[in-house]
């Protein structure tokens, strides 16, 4: 980008260019930036007014949060992009989601040794709620998903895998391709899967099934039960709490994990 020319000749030349430009009906970028600055001020005060009337709606009503986010997305605005954004400052949406992000990271870190970095959205939701305590505001699963989407930019492998009508949340940069995902989905009903089941349901050859299962074992996402009657079963700790309606206390959980 060239510097502004200095000297009388350059100034005159510039003025000429500006005049020609304006004559053609185009507005210069500098003028537009000034215009934007003015519009921004107006918008800011409109937003302040909106906030004073409706801030509570956003705080209390999760459907409103969803709608709000979707409207922003439609026009090309990300209200959660920066803590310094107007939306965040005035409507307080930022702190809500960023704090949720911290809580999600902490829960995932605490359980990683057990489930390898894979957890159901339901379990994540329960544990986050528990961590937030009774005096905090309730959060919906949609809120969690939006917070997780934001966490992705920090490159630590956060992602969501659709299984059985809900999602598995991944929090480690393990390589999970379509084959792995489809096996996870197959295991969702019972919490485990066998080579035969994979061969039958997915029509794969044994090698392909074993390759995928080995990878899941290596990444710590699956545990091998070689003593199961019949053939070996590959269990996914991430799916455990889905099928057991009996709640397990932390003490019991510690006894169960190897």
């Amino acid at each position, binding site marked *: 980008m060239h510097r*502004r020319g200095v000297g009388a000749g350059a100034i005159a030349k510039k003025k000429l260019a500006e005049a020609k*430009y304006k004559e053609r009906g185009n507005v210069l*970028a*500098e003028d*537009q*930036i000034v215009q*934007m*600055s003015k*519009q*921004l001020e107006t*918008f800011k005060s*409109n937003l302040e007014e*909106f906030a004073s*009337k*409706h801030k509570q709606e956003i705080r209390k009503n999760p459907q*409103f949060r969803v*709608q709000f986010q979707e*409207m922003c997305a439609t*026009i090309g*605005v*990300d209200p*959660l*992009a*920066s*803590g*310094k*954004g107007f*939306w965040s400052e005035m409507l307080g949406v930022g*702190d809500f989601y*960023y*704090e949720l*992000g*911290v809580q999600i*990271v*902490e829960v995932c870190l605490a359980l990683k040794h057990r489930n390898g970095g894979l957890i159901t959205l*339901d379990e994540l*939701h*329960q544990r986050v*709620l*528990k961590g937030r305590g*009774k005096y*905090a505001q*309730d*959060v*919906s699963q949609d809120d969690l998903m939006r917070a997780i989407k*934001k*966490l992705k*930019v*920090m*490159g*630590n*492998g956060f992602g969501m895998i659709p299984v059985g009508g809900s999602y598995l949340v991944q929090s*480690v*940069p393990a390589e999970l391709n379509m084959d792995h995902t489809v096996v996870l989905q197959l295991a969702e009903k019972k919490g485990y899967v066998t080579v035969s089941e994979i061969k039958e349901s997915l029509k794969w050859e044994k090698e392909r099934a074993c390759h995928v299962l080995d990878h899941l*074992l*290596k990444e710590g996402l699956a545990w*091998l039960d070689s003593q199961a009657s019949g053939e070996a079963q590959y269990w996914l700790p991430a799916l455990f709490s*889905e099928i057991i*309606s*009996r709640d397990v206390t932390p003490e019991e959980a510690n006894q169960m994990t190897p």
Partner: protein
Amino acid sequence: MDRFSWSNGLLEINETLVIQQRGVRLYDGDDKAKLDVGVALLSTHRLIWRDVKNHECCIAMPLSQILLFEELAAGLGKSAKIVIHLQETTVNKEPGPYQNSKYSFIKLSFKEHGQIEFHRRLTEEMTQKRWENTPVSQPISAGTSSQAGRTRAVGIVGIERKIEEKRKETDKNICEAFEDLSKLMVKAKEMVELSRSIANKIKDKQGDISEDETIRFKSYLLSMGIANPVTRDTYGTGTHYHMQLAKQLGDMLQAPLEERGGMMALTEVYCLVNRARGMELLSPEDLVNACKMFESLKLPLRLRVFDSGVMVVQLQSHSEEEMIASALDNVTDKGSLTAEEFAKLLGLSVLLSKERLLLAEKVGHLCRDDSVEGLRFYPNLFSTA
């Protein structure tokens, strides 16, 4: 509460668990039930409740018993609740904790929250009525349509009206909020379009934009949450805000980084910084953009992205060669190491110790033994042979 029956809490063949929530206390009408706080479980067929301490104490009620339900917002010192109005008891109901009750409604008090999702799922199940399609072996579905001319409990009509009024009032508020929001969005959209026009002109060099103006423009984009469409970053990636942040981070992270062997995963930094702030938190993007400026601001920190995609902040003083050499030393010393073992040795996180081992492998100092027992690294004897 006399609609509940004792249960073993196990799901039937065609019954699926929909959602469960801890920290729920039951109320018999307006009175606290003679039960402790427990877990409420919603299945496709029943509402189940189990005592947390005494798992034997478990009760259930068919969903068909539910007439209607409403949310009660939390108040001062009071948890949020869902009030469930019930149909008359069926004749063949199994015994439960209450023989009879003067109330025709119960309340679920959510002491640990979760009422939003529970209410949503309950609404779904009561709309879909999946229990009608997949009957289960135990006689848990109570009589329903046979009681078409059932005697409604006194006051139900009044309750329904109250709920309807409350819903209308809430709807009105929401409608107003949405109207105001729509107007706001129209204005926001105008600015998005304006910013695109400006960005195009900057790209095509139409007009003479100074560095200051570019930075100002970027800060406008930041305020509005508009992605920066000008990819050519002659004046650095961020705004003044990010520069400030970068300097703050430079000060704040020195000590923690040194404690952790010179490197921290970005998510760790995010948690650390935001926990310290308490409010006016940083967004993940704020953090990434600030870290990208370390180099141009000549701060002693660097943002680094590994092949795996993991992003870390590391001390500039932390040289690559040192890290690789130390990895090689440690592995040679112990014969072989996994990421977990290495992490324990150095007091690092498993994630980062794995990255160091991978780094050393990349330059050829280590080689791997990849099996289902784990990933183990050995000194690369092939290269020295």
